[in-house]
């Protein structure tokens, strides 16, 4: 990930340990440490509202990272991410409701459901590309959501399934702070899994497939296998995110997993910046906080109460505008802006990077 970051003097490795290390320079280590400390201290200072915001960002990050793996790196577009989240949430909900299964059973079960669904979502990708693949995932999203709705009506939970507070070894997982740390742990684990997958064989295979399938096949990469693998891993992670969402809200309902949610996840990776894990995190942060930002701005305006009823419509419209602005004017996303700022300072007083491969 950090290989592409511009370094004024270049960064030269002198041993395999340096090659394997996750952080390359002291600055990276220090800033990472500061960031971790900030994350650990945050819940003790923040009000419940801000705690909830952070938890939502973590949840969104898990989903966005998994979608980034699939779309940003393996190049397989999915418009059905909400379907996978729904599958995970419903697996957790149904197991805990029907069988009173504990959380340490339901979350792995959600991952397995996600993986199986990943194979189903991924099978069309062996034959279809681009637009048609996106359409097939869109269709599958509707099928999954229909099945969830069918379960709700047939079992008489027409408004949704409520989930009891999960208990692990007599310890009740209840309260904002505990869930903040649980979600933080899952988000961090997801990030670590993604980083490591991407710098290993599978990550290289995915990038090759994204760049050019035929060439990837000619290089000896099993294109079908790695495409399915990307779908399976991404879907499993997404389903876990869905299950966590169900526990966090202690409530599951198909209404939460509309097509709009899928679009929001796609928006996260576009706004964040395609092909970058940092982008997925930034996108998750941006898209999660955006509606609250709009709300805060609207309530600042005079006669705020009259806007309260139309808040969601304003949100929709503003969200559409932001997405269009990014697609048209900043296809690299927030990461692109960040990189430009970085290279501005690194290259200063010059304006342009030296052309790659130019003679000195």
């Amino acid at each position, binding site marked *: 990930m950090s290989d592409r970051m511009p370094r004024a003097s270049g960064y030269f490795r002198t041993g395999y340990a340096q090659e394997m290390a996750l952080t390359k320079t002291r600055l990276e280590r220090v800033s990472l440490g500061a960031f971790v400390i900030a994350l650990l201290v945050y819940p003790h200072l923040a009000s419940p509202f801000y705690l909830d915001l952070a938890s939502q960002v973590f949840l969104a990050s898990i989903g966005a990272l998994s979608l980034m793996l699939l779309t940003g790196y393996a190049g397989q577009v999915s418009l059905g991410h909400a379907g996978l989240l729904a599958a995970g949430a419903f697996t957790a909900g149904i197991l805990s409701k029907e069988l009173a299964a504990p959380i340490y059973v339901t979350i792995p079960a959600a991952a397995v459901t996600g993986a199986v669904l990943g194979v189903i979502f991924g099978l069309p990708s062996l034959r279809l590309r681009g*637009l048609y693949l996106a359409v*097939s995932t869109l269709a599958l999203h509707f099928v999954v959501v*229909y099945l969830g709705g069918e379960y709700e009506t047939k079992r008489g939970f027409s408004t949704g399934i409520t989930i009891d507070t999960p208990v692990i070894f007599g310890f009740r997982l209840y309260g904002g702070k505990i869930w903040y740390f649980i979600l933080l742990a899952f988000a961090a684990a997801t990030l670590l899994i993604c980083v490591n997958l991407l710098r290993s064989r599978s990550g290289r295979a995915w990038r090759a497939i994204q760049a050019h*399938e035929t060439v990837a096949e000619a290089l000896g990469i099993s294109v079908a296998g790695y495409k399915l693998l990307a779908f399976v891993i991404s879907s499993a992670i997404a389903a876990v995110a869905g299950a966590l969402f169900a526990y966090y809200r202690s409530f599951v309902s198909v209404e939460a997993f509309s097509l709009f949610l899928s679009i929001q996840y*796609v*928006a996260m990776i576009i706004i964040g910046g395609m092909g970058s894990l940092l982008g997925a995190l930034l996108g998750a942060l941006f898209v999660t906080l955006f509606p609250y930002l709009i709300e805060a701005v609207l309530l600042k305006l005079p006669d705020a109460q009259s806007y309260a009823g139309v808040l*969601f419509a304003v949100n929709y419209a503003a969200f*559409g505008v932001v997405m269009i602005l990014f697609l048209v004017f900043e296809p690299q996303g927030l990461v692109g802006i960040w990189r430009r700022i970085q290279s501005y300072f690194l290259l200063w007083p010059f304006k342009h990077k030296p052309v790659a491969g130019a003679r000195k």
Partner: protein
Amino acid sequence: MQLTVNIVVLASIYALIACGYVLIYRVSRVLNLAHGELMMLGAYLLLATANSFSGNPAVAIAVAVALSLTVGVMVYVFLMRKMTGEMVLAAVLTTVALGILLRGVMVLIWSAQQQYPGQALGFSNPAIALPGGGRISTFAAILVLMTALTYAALFVFLRFGTWGVRMRAAGQNPLLAAQRGINLHAVYALAWGLSTLTGSIAGMLIALDSGLTNTMVIIGLKAFPAALVGGLDSLVGALAGALIIAAAEVLSIQYIDPLLSDVVPFLVLIAMLVVRPWGLFGTREELDRV
């Protein structure tokens, strides 16, 4: 008999909407996922003109139709033109974003409540008894006729009209078309305009028939499988696809489960994608361009 009538009406709705998807895809290879919203916008435009020209329904309808054509052209000129030459997928996602934007704006302007442009125009909607025991509402009958008329007009236009031939040429090979002096931007803008126009006509007639809420988007989205099942670049295909989707939907509601109505079109779509991704009448295209 009533079942057949239902299938035909639903098929005409889907066909009228689906030809909008086909027009844009055929000419510019962009899938317009905002079509449902544009169609709903057409219906709301009719509501707006109905309120301002309440004494004069013909003028209201004409103005609404003209406005919807303008909206389609403007969408291309101000938004989609910037996306030509970008990745196809980026263009598709732009239409998705446009759809979200439109949906928000429409709720802001016209609220989410059920509205009846038919009443505002002073139209009544009596049911007509058909020979054989079926019944059809007046506007549903008009919709069926309108679909037939639209398709006939589009066939004539694309086969014999100067601009129709230009549109086909641009769809077949944009580079060669541009070198022959065809103004690609004008052709694309026209495609967007016509697509929005046909979609809006569908939206208006549905609104006149059964009222207008912001759930109309779902109908637009369900018409999309019809376009794809028939083949995204074939108008005949859109007709056939609409008939298949409508039949599958009506029959499964009748005999299996009413809840299936929202998912059946997509099940048919998945089945089609597995068997024949390019659709019944579509050209088999190389999806991966090097």
